[in-house]
């Protein structure tokens, strides 16, 4: 995307911009993939990734100089709102939301030149290898080791809950390069091609009965030293910067809007808007989302001003994910017996699977740093409570 197009987008009237984005979705996004009940695999959503790539709309938040849309906070929100309301599915977007922004900030020139175009072109699809069976909330206790051997590391260990690892060809991961001293100071950030010999991916079936995440095993895997981002034993700092990106992503009203739009379709179809009690509960949730919008904008403005977002970003994640869950809980209650069925309720916008939505909204309070951990962070780092 050129600087010029970016300026043009940002200068557009909001409604005009909204209409443009909507039209593009209507014309290009496959009907049958609207409101997918599960996170789609590459064989389902890959074409859409490439369509966005061609359009230059894959990376709305990246700066124009790196091939992004460079949208300002307001346009970014509209962009997202239109997509979620239309039921546009999530692509395997870890390169877009995480690796790209991280490399833009912390990567070497060589790394930027190599990886960013390949993300934009859909050549590199990423997954995130942080968690291990013994290291979840306590991520710093991770054990997967990388031992230096000349210009390579030899990696051994076991990552788990790796979302869409089966679709990715690259993994960005945290490994232990030093077992002495403070746990956080012996961690390195590595970029690893998944076709490297010694890597095995084993899918895990999730609660929605879908193979959305996986375990990844590393058995004497050779990784070039050049694949380190930010320097040996500096991985924790890098990971923390990245978690900031992840949390602002999970904190965006995306999930809540999507859930709300499903609830609305269902409510229309079942006639719930005639019930004043339902309308009160619905409106309460709608305002929870509107007010999150207002808060999210404040945070995004900070980034646009070139500022840094600190631990306070945790509040966005908590509010978004818990609002999303409250929406799906109301959806399930309002669906009566359909709250206990796999299938869905027919609506103008396709099937709404209330039970599936309810289950699908469970993990957002677990991943990306659980909400309990986010509350700990807010208590200690923002409120500066003791302990």
């Amino acid at each position, binding site marked *: 995307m050129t600087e010029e197009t970016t300026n043009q987008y940002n200068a557009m009237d909001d409604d005009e911009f909204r209409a443009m984005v909507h039209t593009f979705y209507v014309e290009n996004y496959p009907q049958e993939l609207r409101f997918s009940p599960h996170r789609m695999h590459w064989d389902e959503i890959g074409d859409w990734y490439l369509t966005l790539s061609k359009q230059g709309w894959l990376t709305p938040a990246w700066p124009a100089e790196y091939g992004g849309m460079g949208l300002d906070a307001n346009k970014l929100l509209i962009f997202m709102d239109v997509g979620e309301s239309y039921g546009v599915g999530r692509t395997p977007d870890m390169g877009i939301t995480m690796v790209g922004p991280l490399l833009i900030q912390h990567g070497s020139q060589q790394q930027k030149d190599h990886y960013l175009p390949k993300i934009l072109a859909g050549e590199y699809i990423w997954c995130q290898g942080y968690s291990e069976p013994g290291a*979840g909330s306590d991520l710093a206790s991770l054990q997967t080791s990388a031992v230096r051997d000349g210009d390579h590391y030899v990696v051994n260990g076991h990552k788990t809950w790796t979302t869409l690892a089966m679709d990715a060809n690259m993994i960005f991961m945290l490994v232990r390069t030093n077992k002495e001293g403070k746990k956080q100071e012996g961690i390195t950030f590595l970029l690893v091609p998944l076709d490297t010999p010694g890597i095995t991916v084993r899918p*895990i079936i999730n609660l929605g009965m879908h193979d959305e995440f996986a375990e990844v095993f590393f058995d004497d895997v050779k990784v070039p030293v050049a694949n380190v981002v930010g320097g040996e034993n500096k991985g924790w700092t890098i990971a923390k910067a990245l978690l900031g990106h992840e949390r602002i992503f999970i904190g965006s009203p995306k999930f809540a809007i999507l859930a709300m739009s499903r609830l609305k379709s269902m409510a229309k179809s079942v006639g719930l808007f005639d019930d004043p009690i339902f309308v009160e509960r619905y409106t309460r949730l709608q305002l929870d989302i509107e007010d999150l919008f207002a808060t999210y904008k404040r945070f995004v403005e900070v980034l646009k001003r070139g500022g840094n977002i600190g631990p306070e970003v945790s509040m966005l994640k908590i509010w978004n994910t818990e609002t999303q869950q409250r929406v799906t809980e109301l959806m*399930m209650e309002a669906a009566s*017996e359909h709250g*206990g069925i*796999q299938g869905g309720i027919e609506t103008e916008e396709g099937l709404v699977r209330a039970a599936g939505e309810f289950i699908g909204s*469970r*993990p957002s309070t*677990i991943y990306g740093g659980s909400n*309990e951990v986010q509350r700990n962070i807010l208590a200690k780092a923002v409120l500066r409570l003791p302990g």
Partner: protein
Amino acid sequence: MEDISLQSRIDVLTEQQVLIQDSAVAFIAQDEELKKTRESRFVQPGYDQQTWQEMAELGWLGFLIPEQYGGIGLGFDDLHPVLIQLGKGLLPAPFVATAVVAASVLVNCDNEAIKKDRLPALVSGAWKPALAWQETQGQMSVEAEQLRIVDGKLSGKKAFVPDAGGADDFIVSAGGDKGTELYLVNKGATGLTIDYEQRIDGGFYARLSFDQVDVGELLAGTDRAEQVLESALDEGRVAASVELLGVMTRSLEITVDYLNQRVQFDKPIGSFQAIQHKTVDLFILSEISRSVVLQTIALLDGDASAHDRAVGASQVKARCGDAALQITKSAIQLHGGIGYTDEANIGLYLKKAMYLASWLGNATAHRARYAELTL
């Protein structure tokens, strides 16, 4: 697994209840890993026939059926320890739908010949009826509107019939000129088609379509049909609530166990105060539910009016439906990533709660009914 409920601390069980509880505990202990529960998921009939037969041998299917029809004639006070264990063990068997709801309709119906013939077969496990009363989503009234009787033939649809795959006959409510009647219709009757819908817990609901189906045997006429239905459904709501109590209790036990085992930051996660408070709140919810369950089964066993039973049934279903969902969904959260896998058993408890909480009226519907009955 350690029993963390207050039962052993503050409640008194009769000798008979203790015996029944012990045998139920031993029964579910045979499949502590929930292998059978998993095997029967999403495969017709959605439950395990052998388990059903074993329950018959233990006499459970006849608990609520009078001795003159081959049953044991006990009350909910003696049945409730069984129901709790069924919930704890996620037993793949349509106990409440068949041995409580359908059995209650038959026991209270007016067709003596059918009772003498079929109830002993229900008790022995040889015959299973399923009740088809519901027509629309969220329906609470027992009046049959959509399924009509015209010239001795049934036409129309029924929905949300649980566990119909293994049933032999359907008890069907149908509307005629003068009101609702109840019939026993053979599953193989001409003109009857059955579609199945997968439930979230791995069982099935059926949709029945009747096209000029012979009415079969009359069970209750317009004078009593609605009353018989209402009372059977209320018993079902209470029984489902007791099962939900078992579901929530075991999921809490599993969770407390996990909080003791799982170490992060060099400590068991159960040592974090945020976790402790959350878990204590869940515990309180489960005991509040237990209190309502105990109160309601006493009500059903006593001589309360139909109105008071309905109020009690709605009170207990509203509480247990909400509490079970709250506890099982929090159990997922407290387990972290492992909780969101199909592999871990804790998720099966959430799904059972989702089914039982939404069957026969969810908490919202029962609060509305409670208000209607009491305000």
